[in-house]
């Protein structure tokens, strides 16, 4: 699928002579040397990204690595020194001011670290700011702002003023303000960084809920690794203005591109990153229906490495697990379901950290189901132990043990 945002060879050099800075970058000098020699600061350097429609794309990096600069280049709050940014195939960097303003007000909303609300406006009028700027009439924009406030759970506070709300609530107003224009892309620069940890987690959940209702493309700047892993479909790691690695949290954790990236993941709890779906066996499990005979079941299990099968209903929903050794108690023409063990399945996004407890309680392997209860695979004891072992080794490689 076409990426919704495509960034190519994007550079931003701040300072008295950006072009000179650009030349020195091409000569291979690094950020610090360029600053010492010319007083130009490299903000973003040779950035190439494809951001897919509907994903939460997290940009991480240390302070000063260029995250804020990058996100502001996407809606051209900062003019690039070189390179292109395309949104739905249209080059933002060469757009006329008029088109740019239209794009910003219709397609690209932004949420700020300091909330950036207007203290003299009520919550509802703050949420309606984008619509007001776009020239939407008062009644209509209040209606839409109210809907946005409902979405973020601030229904009752429409008439309050921002300074009457807590930080978390103020940022929900910031979120509502972005949602009110119904943008397809949301740019969030450390949107939750100013909030205390509990509220921050709550806001992350809120964002994920909103994504479930209506998928938007979110470019989310963060310097909090747990946050990035929790909400990010993919993560880009920035270092000194460069994007040094892009990938899913798992890819980056298992194959960090360099020492910087590795040090970033120092101390992260990997068993929170991996989920049941990552370690389950989905290929070697015979799937039976309710009236499969014991004979056929034994036959099918004999052809796979494991010694278990599962029974599903007509809709593919998980019912029970059958073990080869119990089938021996039955004559061949009886139904296999007679000796099946009914256990509670787990959702596929269950964290690896939560699986050992389940395994200890269950007489059979742990069945994994999707959102509709359909069978996806089994987490066998062997797989579980292997995964835990691997994650311990990964943690050790990250210097954790």
């Amino acid at each position, binding site marked *: 699928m076409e990426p919704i945002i495509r960034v190519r060879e994007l550079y931003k050099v701040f300072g008295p002579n950006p072009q000179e800075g650009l030349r020195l970058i091409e000569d291979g000098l690094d950020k610090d040397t360029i600053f010492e020699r010319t007083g130009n600061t490299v903000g973003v350097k040779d950035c190439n990204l494809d951001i897919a429609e509907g994903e939460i794309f997290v940009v991480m990096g240390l302070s000063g690595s260029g995250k804020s600069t990058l996100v502001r280049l996407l809606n051209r709050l900062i003019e690039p020194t070189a390179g292109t940014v395309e949104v739905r195939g249209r080059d933002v960097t060469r757009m006329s001011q008029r088109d740019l*303003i239209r794009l910003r*007000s219709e397609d690209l909303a*932004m949420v700020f670290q300091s909330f*950036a609300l*207007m203290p003299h406006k009520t919550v509802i009028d703050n949420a309606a*700011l984008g619509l007001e*700027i776009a020239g939407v009439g008062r009644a209509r924009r209040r209606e839409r702002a109210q809907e946005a406030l409902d979405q973020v759970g601030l229904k009752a506070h429409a008439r309050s003023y921002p300074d009457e709300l807590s930080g978390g609530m103020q940022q929900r107003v910031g979120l509502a303000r972005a949602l009110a224009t119904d943008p397809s892309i949301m740019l969030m620069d450390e949107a939750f960084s100013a909030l205390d940890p509990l509220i921050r987690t709550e806001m992350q959940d809120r964002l994920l809920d909103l994504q479930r209702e209506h998928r938007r493309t979110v470019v989310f700047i963060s310097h909090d690794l747990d946050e990035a892993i929790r909400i990010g479909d993919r993560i880009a790691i920035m270092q000194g203005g460069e994007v040094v690695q892009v990938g899913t949290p798992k890819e980056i954790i298992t194959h960090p591109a360099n020492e910087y990236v590795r040090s970033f993941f120092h101390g992260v709890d990997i068993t929170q990153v991996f989920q049941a779906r990552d370690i389950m066996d989905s290929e070697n499990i015979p799937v039976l229906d309710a009236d499969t005979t014991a004979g056929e079941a034994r036959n099918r299990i004999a052809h796979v490495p494991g010694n278990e099968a599962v029974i599903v209903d007509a809709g593919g929903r998980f019912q029970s697990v059958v073990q080869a050794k119990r089938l021996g108690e039955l004559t061949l023409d009886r139904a296999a379901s007679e000796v099946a063990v009914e256990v509670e399945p787990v959702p596929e996004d269950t964290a690896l950290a939560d699986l050992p407890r389940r395994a200890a309680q269950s007489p059979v392997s742990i069945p994994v189901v999707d959102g509709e209860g359909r069978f996806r695979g089994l987490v066998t004891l062997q797989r579980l132990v292997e995964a835990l072992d691997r994650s311990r080794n990964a943690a050790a490689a990250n210097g954790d043990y």
Partner: protein
Amino acid sequence: MEGRINIPVGDWIEAGVDWILDNLEPALDGIAWFLGLLTNSFEGALLAIPAWLLVLALVGLSWWRVSWRFGIFAILALGLILGMDLWEPTIKTLSLVLAATAVALAIGMPVGVAMARSDWVEASIRPVLDLMQTMPPFVYLIPAAIFFGLGTVPGAIATVVFCMPPVVRLTNLGIRQVNREQIEAGLAFGCNRRQLLTKIQLPLAMPSIMAGINQTIMLALSMVVIASMIGAGGLGNTVLTGIQRLDVGLGFEGGLGVVILAILLDRITQSVGRRRKASS
């Protein structure tokens, strides 16, 4: 000590004044006409209202905007002015202050906005403001009297010049102090330059601008009193008469009138800024 250097700054200024008098007379007449009209309209309007009604309005405003205690102060203070038979000069002074402030704001706020938008404009206007503020106020009276003769209009003009700097400075400062992310929020949601000014910068700079307006009004009041030396009339004239006749009582009464007007104007204009922020 033969070669004592003598730079004839005074001569140059005189030459400049002559040139202006010769060449810009229509413009001067226009300004005089407009300011005269403005001051007279304010004065006419305020004197047309019965004194008790105006007192009631001012007391109501003080009560509602500031506090009930200040409302009571207003009753007593305005009663005192009526009792001292200084109502008419007080109104005259008030009209001059209002007219001069209106003109100063009409010029000063756009200048402040221009300064905030361009470092270059700021750098060139700033010394002018410094000059305007450090020059002793009496100095403005001379050119004002030369260009416009004696009376209310030159008084108003000298006042406009003298009271303008605070609103210019604080408009500029207020806009420049607006948080960077708030500006970015405006732009990110699609503001053009005009919208950025009217929807983001000016509202957020409002507390600062209101402080500037308040200071401008107070400066206008102090200048209006001085301007009575070139015939601007009002409470300043009462004080001046007191000085000329060595009449301590009359001078003190006039001074008291000025103080009362100052306190009322100060508190009421300050409260406007606060209200806007808290619940507009």
